[in-house]
């Protein structure tokens, strides 16, 4: 039991039908990452297809404004526009190695769906993406992209008709079709070994960033930050710094309209341990133990739970988790556009929005690395509506 857990978090809370499937997956995964050929192939596609390594960009004007060195890890420059593809390449190569011919995925905003559809096209696999009907409505562009890439988008109408429900439906389908189907989970969530696997395939972010920072500064950064929904870009950004005790790790959750309003997505601010999607972790719940609907202007952070390793890092005190509101995130987004000429995803803007607070007592001799997890093209409509005062599309 212990190796499936991070402290008291994690585990395998799935139906008996899936237990042998998870065991098979775990065996195949452990073998694959110990196989130099597999890792070589993974890195080949990351370099030649995804376009890695991504730059660790010294943000000159932000640095000037905040009085400490600010570096952006440019995951937004990856093919398909975000970090999601790192993990998808790893999981689909594993699926292929296991002899599976079909992949399924869940998606909220559509970024993981697009990345999975892309990987499936690249490796000639059949792909079904589950998406809540609410999300299909508001993320039409990504639905079109997935379909162009040859994937079938399956509308999910149950519960809140969003990511959480799409995930439920993907799990149900997986239970039925596991014999020839691989479930590509998009975040550092789900039953073991998913959180571990997603971390492994996203850890390339910090592997590069650590080396790049050492090259540029001759030392480790003082602070490393990333936004947290389920927590995949964040765990990837933390991975190679977790053992470096002098590096402060900060995860930024979405506070939506404000934690006090109840309309937020900060599982670690107000959630309590619960079980959802195969894992035990912090979870937003109502007074009957039902899962509460999260709220954030960013569809990618709009998730009521959080990856189990984050829950553990929080409880052990190794990482700090904070939250910023929709408004703070949108202001930070605007600031990055104007100061650096980069339109970030609204998700990534949450990490940027914590800069004013974290840099307050920092000097020019110190540095902050922020994971710029994705680009903002997909959010153009939301951004426009927000700044026109029309409220949210998300």
């Amino acid at each position, binding site marked *: 039991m212990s190796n499936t857990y991070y402290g008291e978090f994690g585990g395998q809370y799935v139906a008996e039908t899936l237990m042998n499937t998870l065991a098979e997956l775990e065996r195949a995964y452990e073998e694959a990452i110990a196989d130099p050929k597999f890792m070589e192939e993974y890195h080949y596609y990351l370099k030649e297809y995804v376009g890695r390594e991504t730059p660790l960009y010294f943000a000159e004007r932000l640095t000037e404004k905040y009085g400490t060195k600010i570096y952006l890890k440019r995951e937004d420059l990856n093919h398909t526009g975000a970090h999601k593809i790192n993990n998808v390449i790893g999981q689909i190569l594993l699926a292929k190695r296991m002899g599976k011919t079909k992949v399924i995925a869940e998606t909220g905003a559509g970024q993981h769906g697009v990345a999975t559809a892309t990987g499936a096209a690249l490796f000639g696999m059949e792909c079904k993406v589950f998406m809540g009907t609410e999300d299909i409505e508001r993320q039409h562009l990504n639905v079109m992209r997935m379909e162009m890439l040859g994937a079938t988008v399956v509308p999910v109408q149950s519960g809140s008709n969003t990511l959480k429900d799409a995930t439920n439906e993907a799990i*149900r389908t997986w239970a039925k079709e596991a014999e020839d189907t691989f479930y590509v989970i998009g975040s550092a969530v789900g039953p073991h070994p998913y959180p571990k696997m997603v971390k492994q395939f996203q850890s390339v972010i910090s592997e590069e960033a650590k080396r790049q920072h050492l090259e540029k500064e001759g030392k480790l950064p003082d602070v490393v930050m990333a936004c947290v929904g389920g927590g995949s870009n964040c765990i990837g950004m933390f991975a190679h710094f977790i053992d470096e005790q002098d590096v402060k790790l900060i995860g930024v959750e979405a506070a939506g309209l404000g934690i006090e309003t109840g309309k937020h997505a900060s599982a670690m601010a107000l959630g309590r341990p619960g079980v959802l999607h195969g894992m035990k972790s912090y979870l937003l719940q109502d007074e009957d133990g039902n899962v509460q609907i999260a709220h954030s202007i960013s569809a990618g952070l709009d998730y009521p739970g959080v990856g189990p390793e984050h829950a553990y890092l929080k409880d052990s005190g190794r990482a700090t988790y904070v939250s910023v509101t929709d408004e703070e995130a949108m202001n930070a987004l605007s600031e990055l556009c104007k100061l650096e000429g980069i339109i970030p995803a609204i998700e990534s803007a949450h990490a940027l929005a914590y800069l004013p607070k974290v840099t307050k007592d920092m000097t020019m001799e110190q540095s902050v690395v922020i994971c710029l997890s994705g680009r903002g093209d997909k959010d153009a409509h939301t951004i426009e509506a927000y700044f026109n005062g029309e409220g949210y599309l998300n």
Partner: protein
Amino acid sequence: MNRMEQRLQACKQEGKKAFITYMTAGLPDMEGCKKLIQTQEAAGIDAIELGIPFSDPVADGPVIQAASYKSICQGTNLKGVFEMVSQVRKEGCEVPLIFMMYFNTILYYGIEKFVEKCIEVGVDGVIVPDLPFEEQKQFTDVLNAHEHAPIMIQLLTPMSKQRIPMILENARGFVYCVSSMGVTGQAADFHKDIRAYLKEVKSQSNIPVMIGFGIRTAKDVDGVRDLVDGCIVGSHFINMMEESGYDMNVAKTYIETFKQELNA
């Protein structure tokens, strides 16, 4: 031996197959739900699975999902179901009651408090589809520490294979054999290796073997009747109740007919 074990043993002694239904707690409302339990008891049901609605029922198909959602929207919660069960027991109902619920509901209520409350009101069994064997210790430790605690029902599936002995080792009450892969409420096309799978379970089990998932009529289990001690109907029963507007006569006729045909 608790009510459930006694009833199943009685079935065995009479040479009869047992019949269990699943119903979502709180539907059509708490009062109607109580009446449905009593009607089923009068019609001769051997045990009732009472589904505690949860927001994210990943082991369930569309019918039970919709029923759970409806019930939650009407305000059903665990506390209310405990009150209803307590009431129905006070009114003399002795039918074995099994809670079918997701682990988060127990965790949130508090494992210790949950077990004590089950004992207090008279819950005989608990089925937790998202708590596989490897995660059960946190729950079974508490169950085992209490006399008259409800029995944790173990689930097996066509995929369980080498896991069967481990799961059966300390299993009590009955073993719930899922007939196919996937979720509740699919059509009755059992797994292609259904007979081999049930044979395997039957040969290793010293408690009754019940089959469930995708069953509508007694005829659906014809092909495996010799390998099971009874069967469970869920989604189809809920569909019938929803469609008839919870007509108690429909429930009564269905159960009587099913039991008769199952033992014909």
